[in-house]
């Protein structure tokens, strides 16, 4: 599990953030990004010594000033749910990709489709896509959209 996924999941939850300068911020996480920059709402700031306190409606903290974040224990269980969901989604994306290859099959007339399916391996794809390209522009266009097929198209040209 990635620390930033946990942080992302903690959106909307209360948390404590300690900065490198020792100040702490208690607030609800509104948003965060891949740099750990965070946006908190309903914040209470505590000075390093813990002797002064400020209330602020919201604040933005640059990620690289953070020392650590304390998040509610239950958040970790929610992340696990989300990662499961994401790994569920992955095969569907792959499946969709293959499906698209076959769809191009129809557009590209016959063999061009092999270029689409070849998306699994670049070499294979290139060779098949190249052939597709040489045969018909429809196949070349189809290969182009499947990513690796772009190499195939250029090969087609060099042939």
């Amino acid at each position, binding site marked *: 599990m990635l620390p930033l996924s946990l942080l992302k999941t903690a959106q909307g*939850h*209360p*948390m*404590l953030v300690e*900065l490198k*300068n*020792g100040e*702490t911020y*208690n607030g609800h996480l*509104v*948003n*965060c*990004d*891949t*740099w750990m*920059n*965070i*946006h908190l709402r309903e*914040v*209470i700031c*505590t*000075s*390093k*010594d*813990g*002797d*002064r*306190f*400020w*209330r*602020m*409606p*919201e*604040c*933005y*903290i*640059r990620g690289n*000033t953070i020392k650590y974040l*304390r*998040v*509610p*224990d239950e958040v970790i269980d929610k992340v696990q749910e989300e990662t499961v969901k994401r790994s569920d989604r992955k095969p569907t994306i792959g499946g969709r990709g293959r499906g698209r290859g076959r769809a191009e099959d129809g557009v590209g007339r016959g063999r061009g489709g092999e270029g689409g399916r070849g998306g699994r391996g670049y070499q294979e794809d290139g060779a098949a896509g190249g052939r597709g390209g040489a045969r018909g522009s429809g196949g070349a266009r189809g290969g182009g959209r499947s990513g690796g097929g772009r190499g195939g198209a250029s090969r087609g040209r060099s042939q």
Partner: protein
Amino acid sequence: MWGLCVGKSGRKETVLDLAKFVDRGVSVKLSGGRQVTGTLKGYDQLLNLVLDEATENLRDSDDPLKTTDQMRQLGLIVCRGTAVMLVAPTDGTEEIANPFLANETPAAT
């Protein structure tokens, strides 16, 4: 740096939309311990900020990490983005008495 972040992650939005703070008072903490407040006149994606009528919260001469209530006028300034640690609106920000029963709080509950 910010641009890279946007490019790499594919995320278009920065965490905080500073547009809503334009022409409003903001308090900015800078790395190194300085703290300034002023009216936000402009900003960019690198978090460089333009503050008008800025004042710096002067710090304790013994402990430069502590701010005091003394201020000094700076006028119109640019805060370098890389040095900006924290941005908060001054509106609604106030010093309060200890809101926690003990100093160390089980905050994340």
